[in-house]
Each structure stands twice: as structure tokens, then as C-alpha cells.
């Protein structure tokens, strides 16, 4: 079972890295770039859990460790074949 997790800043929270990348891309001549956000992407391999359990466990991991829910939100998908 593979959990694919995206952690990104909530709306309105300053994303200094995204801002810097945006700036850099414009400087490099990518003038079509209007906005950049930079987040985290995790792949977590799980073993010995059912799909339902995994659902619950992964959301628990996000809440407890992977996302800082004060400023970040998260979403994930579970891939049972992986």
C-alpha cells in the first residue's frame, strides 16, 4: 500500500519559498508564471494494513507529524497496488 501525501500552505499564509521561486522564474524569462506555491510531497509505504485502516492511519500521521495544521493543509491518496 502506498500513501501519496501532499502538504501545502493554507490560503493566505505567506509562502516565502514560493515567492522566491516565482521571482527567480520571472528573472529567468519565464514571464508566463503568475504564481508559485511550494509544498511537500511524501510517499509512504505501508505494510500489513487494510485499506480502511490505512485511511485512518495516514490521516493520523498527517495530523500528528507530517503537516503543521496551523498553517498547512494536507491531502492524500492510497494506492493499494503499490
Amino acid at each position, binding site marked *: 500500500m502506498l500513501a501519496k501525501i501532499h502538504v501545502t*500552505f*493554507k490560503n*493566505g*499564509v*505567506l*509562502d*516565502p519559498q514560493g*515567492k*522566491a521561486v516565482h*521571482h527567480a522564474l520571472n528573472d529567468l524569462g519565464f514571464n508566463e508564471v503568475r504564481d508559485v506555491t511550494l509544498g511537500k510531497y511524501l510517499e509512504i509505504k505501508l505494510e500489513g494494513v487494510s485499506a480502511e485502516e490505512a485511511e485512518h492511519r495516514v490521516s493520523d500521521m498527517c495530523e500528528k507529524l507530517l503537516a*503543521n495544521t*496551523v*498553517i498547512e493543509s494536507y491531502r492524500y491518496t492510497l494506492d493499494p497496488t503499490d
Partner: protein
Amino acid sequence: MSAPNEPEITPQVVADHGLTAGEYERIQELLGRAPNFTELGIFSVMWSEHCSYKSSRPHLKTLPIEGPRVIEGPGENAGVVDIGDGLAAVFKIESHNHPSFVEPHQGAATGVGGIMRDVFTMGARPIALLNSLRFGEPADARTRFLLNGVVEGIASYGNCTGVPTVGGEVYFDPCYNGNILVNAFCLGLVKTDKVFRARAGGVGNAVIYVGSKTGRDGIHGASLLASAEFDERTEEKRPTVQVGDPFTEKLLIEACLELMKKDWVIGVQDMGAAGLTSSSFEMAGREGTGIEMDLSKVPLRETGMTPYEILLSESQERMLFVVEKGHEEDAIEIFRKWDLDAAFIGHVTASPSVRILFEGREVVNLPVLPVVDGCLGLERPARRPVWLDHVKELDLAAVDEPAQGGAALKALLGSLNIASREWVYEQYDHMVRLNTLIMPGSDAAVLRVPDTNKALAIAVDCNSRYCQLDPYLGAQIAVSECARNIACSGGEPIGLTNCLNFGNPERPEIMWQFEQAVRGIGDACRFFDIPVVSGNVSLYNETKGEAIFPTPTVALVGLLEDRDWQTSQWFKNSGDEIGLLGETFPELGGSEYLSVLHKETRGSPPALDLNREKRLQALVRELIHGRHILSAHDCSEGGLAVALAESCISHPETPLGAEIGLFSPLRKDALLFGESQSRVVISYPREARDTIAARAGERKTPFTPLGSVGGEALAIAVNGEEYIREDVRTLNDLWRGSLGDYVRQTS
């Protein structure tokens, strides 16, 4: 006049803004009309406890703030103290407690950013950061998370901006379970004739906004959150947490310092709590002028922001400048070079009011003084807590005296309040800019003053357990101990800044603690002739009715006329002699020993005789300046035994042993672990002993040779019988490892 679609003002809206009905009435009286919604927002932040100091102001007025070296005392963004050679030290300490509890990394990071801006606002280049941290009980899983996050946050911000973090303190106590403390200190250097002030002078001069764009972050953050207790509802009311951008701060430092070299810069203030509102009103207020500005010109990060939001945003890394008319473009050009946003948003006016336009219409028009000064100081009632009578009792006869002292010494060295802070300061760049002569790990950090032969010593201190048991005495001890740390490093204190962390001032017991502590700081400073030049108050550190121990943190800056006086706490050579300056009394009240080994916080804190303390510090300095002693370490938490052990093992490279012989009628635990004040452990070459004895005699300070440096063990005999013998490597591993082990350990 008002912005479109503003909510109507109802009693509920007033209450939600943290204003009492009485305060709202007073606002109407002062204005001669009702404020509109945006104006109400302005009053709400400016009259909040955080900005108005309404509970604390009457007491703070009693602090001694004058001295021959003082260039700016409290009232400006930071205090300024003359250090000679045409230079001044600029410093201040400030709290970021509530945000750090909610989001430790960003809360602590933005705390560091804020205090740095206070310092470079004065025209000074920041050269040192320190911090004073308080966490709850170690067993609480959240404590580890908070410690990790706070330290990482401080590191991320300080390291990136290239300002070294050179010292601080970390304590754990259950009283901080729901309210951690994060107090950040910054020191900068400025030429005395280049000190800038937060003033909007010169009618017609231009008001320039610089730094990051304004977003919706932290609206009502510092002001409201720091002006009310925590409860379950705080979670929901929580404003968007501010995320720090240390890179922008670094650019801002360089750009501002470059701009401040120009003689057409009039005044500047950072946008801290209450953002654009406080910076504009306060700059006008100090000068007796007014400001007119157009919010449509403010660089915004988000779309659809209202004037209310723009004015109250606490987005980080922003400053407000006033420059001479005609130099708007020159100023903006400098910020452009550093790729920073900057905009010409308004000008200084003669009439003492702030007039704010947005999209062509007037949305705010308020007289300056009622906003910045109109909030009435509160004479809050104060009452001594009755529980004090109970906790002061301590029956030593009921406390077991251990037959051997080794186990107690090891327990103390491995306890989190005494163990080495290496795990913390290794994460801080404490060397950048090549000024740090004495790095973290000694009584005070010492930094050279570039281009002179001088150095500055800096330390922060507060034993809040003492303050809980006796806030007046505890506060006096904080000042004394801090000054002692400076003396041990070779310096003479020249200025103090303080951060007063207390519970809910609406409770008379808390107000009593506050009043006592302020009096304690004031009396001690007057006695030592140390001016208080800046400070900060953090109230409402209380969750569900549980207040923190009173924690009046003080930070002192000391001057070394000759940087070669710099002295560290660790023993230097085998064969040197070890001695004690000062006297030990049977005092275990409020000690770390009682807390760690007997799980008790009770009794009276150790007595303090200010005269004795002053003589001791003068003696230590005299011995250092005369090059008679090689190390000096003050006895604080854990007493004499811990001070001796630290002098053995805190050497950055090689721990050294010591053979000690004590003779005393006291109980052995009081002798070794008691925390009697005004004591310093020194080491010196044998031949210096007579000189030291003579000087100590002149200063009427007891001097007792205790033994010598050397060997593999710390061995302490009392009245001829061995009481402690421990391998110094064992002690070293225990002391250096335990904080890191604690953090890495899992619950």
C-alpha cells in the same frame, strides 16, 4: 466617512475588539463622535494591553531609567547606551509567547525577526541575539515538540539573517505547561551621532512603506492574543499565524542600513504589533505631527483587502520611513537594488491627526494623541496571595541528608534545568561576523566591538521559582545574578532590559506579583546604578486559571574596556588552585536540589545582601583586570557542587578533574547544593593566592582556597571525609548528553 460595507458597531462588536463599555464611551468622548468600524479596530489594537501597557504603565514608571551613558531609554524601539569611541549599544528583549505556543517554529522565528527590527530601526547593525525560553514539564509530550520547534525556529531565522545567537537560557517547569515563554533579545551597534528615532518630523516630508507585501496574517495577533487568557476558544479565535521570511529580513537590514547613511532620512519605525497602525500613529505622536496616507498604494499580497485589514495586518518584515520631501525616488531606488517592495504612501502633516484614504475616499480621520495616549492607565488592585504563607514553610529536618553526595550531583547534572545547553546552541550559528570571543557555554557571552579594543558581555537571567516564592527577592536575585555573570566574564554592567512575563493582571494576586517584581528590579538597579533602557511586558500567560510563575527575565549588557579581560567559567590548567569568593549559608529553599531530589518547590529563596553582592562583583572584576584569576563561575542552580563540576567539564575540549576539601559545620547537602547568593568559584595560579586574599580582605569578601585542578575525578571531601568522587568523563557525558537524549527520546 467610512469604508464601504463596514459592519455596524454594536456592544458585541466592541466587546469582540477587547474594549470595555467604559473604554468605548471614553473613545466617543475623546472624539466627540462615534468611531467607524475601521477606527474602532485602530483603538482596539492601540488600547490593547500589548500596545498601551495600561495595567503595567503605572509600575514601570518607577524604574530607574537614567544614567550618564543613556542615549535613549524606554519609549523608543530599543534602548541606546554609550560605550565610548563614538559608539553605542542598542538592545531590547521582547516576548513572543503566545504565537510560539500555537506554532513553535514560526512563532519563535518571527519573535527573533521582530526584535531585530526594533534594533536596526534605531540605525544599529544587529550583532548578537540571545533568548530566554521556558517550557512545561519534560514528561509532557508536547514539551519536546515545542522545544524542538522553538529552537529550530530561532535557528532558522537568526542563522539566515547572519546575526549570531550567542546565549540564552532554557528552563522546564510544570507551571509553563499551557504557556511557554519565548523571549528574544537583540543587540546592535550604532555610531552615537547616527541614532535614528521613530519620529515623523517635518511637515510635507514623505512617508515610505518598505519590505514585504501586506497580507491578512496576524490581524489582531499580538494585540488581542497577548491581551487575553488562553482557553478552548482561543483555538478558534486564533488568527492566521505569521510565517517569517528571514531572507527578506536580511535584505531589509542591509537596505535600511544603506538608506540610513543618507542625511535626508528623518525617522523610521518597524511595523510590529498592530502593524501600519501603530507605526504611523506612534511616529506622529512622538513628534506632535500628523500623517496622511493612501492605503491604495500599500503593496498587497492578497486581493480584496479592506482598509481595516491593511491597517491591522501584522505581516512581518515591514518598515515605515519618513524621508525628506523630494527624496522619495532615491529611497525607493535603494530598496529596488535589494529587490524589496517600497512605496511612497503619504506625507507628514501639521495637524496632529492621522487621515487615511482608500480608493479615493477618506476612511479614517483620527486625532493622534487620543489614540496613542488616551487609554487610561489602570490602577488594578493587588493582593498578596495567601498560599504564599504555606509554601514558604520548609522544615529542613524533614529533608533527608544523603550520606554520600555523588548520586545527587549526578542527578542534578543530568537534570534538564542544569544539563549543558549544547544541543540548543549547536543549532545556532554563534560565530558569524567573527565577534564572538566567548561562545555560548560560559556565564556570559563576550563579543568584541569591531574597530576598538573593547568587548561587550551579555547575559540573561531569571529564576522563576524564586520569584514564585518571593517575587520581590526573586527579581532582585535575577538582576544580581545576571550582573554577577557579567562580572565573571570581566565586564561592568551598563544597561538592563527586561521582559516581564506574568499571568492575568485582572487577578489581584498576579498584580501583586507584578508590582513586587518591578519594585525588586528597580531597587536592585538603583543600588547597582544600572539604568533600565528598554523592556517588554507579557501578561495573560495563563491557561484555564493556571498562571505561570512570575518570570521577570532580565538581560544585561556589560562593557569590557579591554577585550583581553574576557574570562570564561572553565578551569584552564592542571595544577591551578581553586577558591571560593563569598559565603555559604544553610539555604535550600526554592533550590534545584529540593526540586530534583525531593520534588518540592518551597521555602524562602536564598537571602540577598545587595552590599555584599556589590563588593563581590567589584572584587571579581578587580581580580580579572589584574590578571590574577584564570576562570570565574558564579554559583547558581545546583549550588557549589554543580558550579565546581561545570568548571571542570564545560571546557570546550578537555574536561579537567579537581580535588576539593571543604570544612564547614553546615549540613552537607546545604553546603554543596544550597544556592546561597553572592558566590563565585575561581581558579588561579598558586602564586596569586596571597594577592587574592589581600584584595578580598580589602573588599570584605570571604575568600576560601578549596583545592586544585587536576586528575581524572571531581573529588570533594567535607571535613576530611570524602563525600563525592566521580570520574569527570562520566559527569561530562551525563551533563552534555542529557538534553539531546531527552529530545531524541520518544514518548
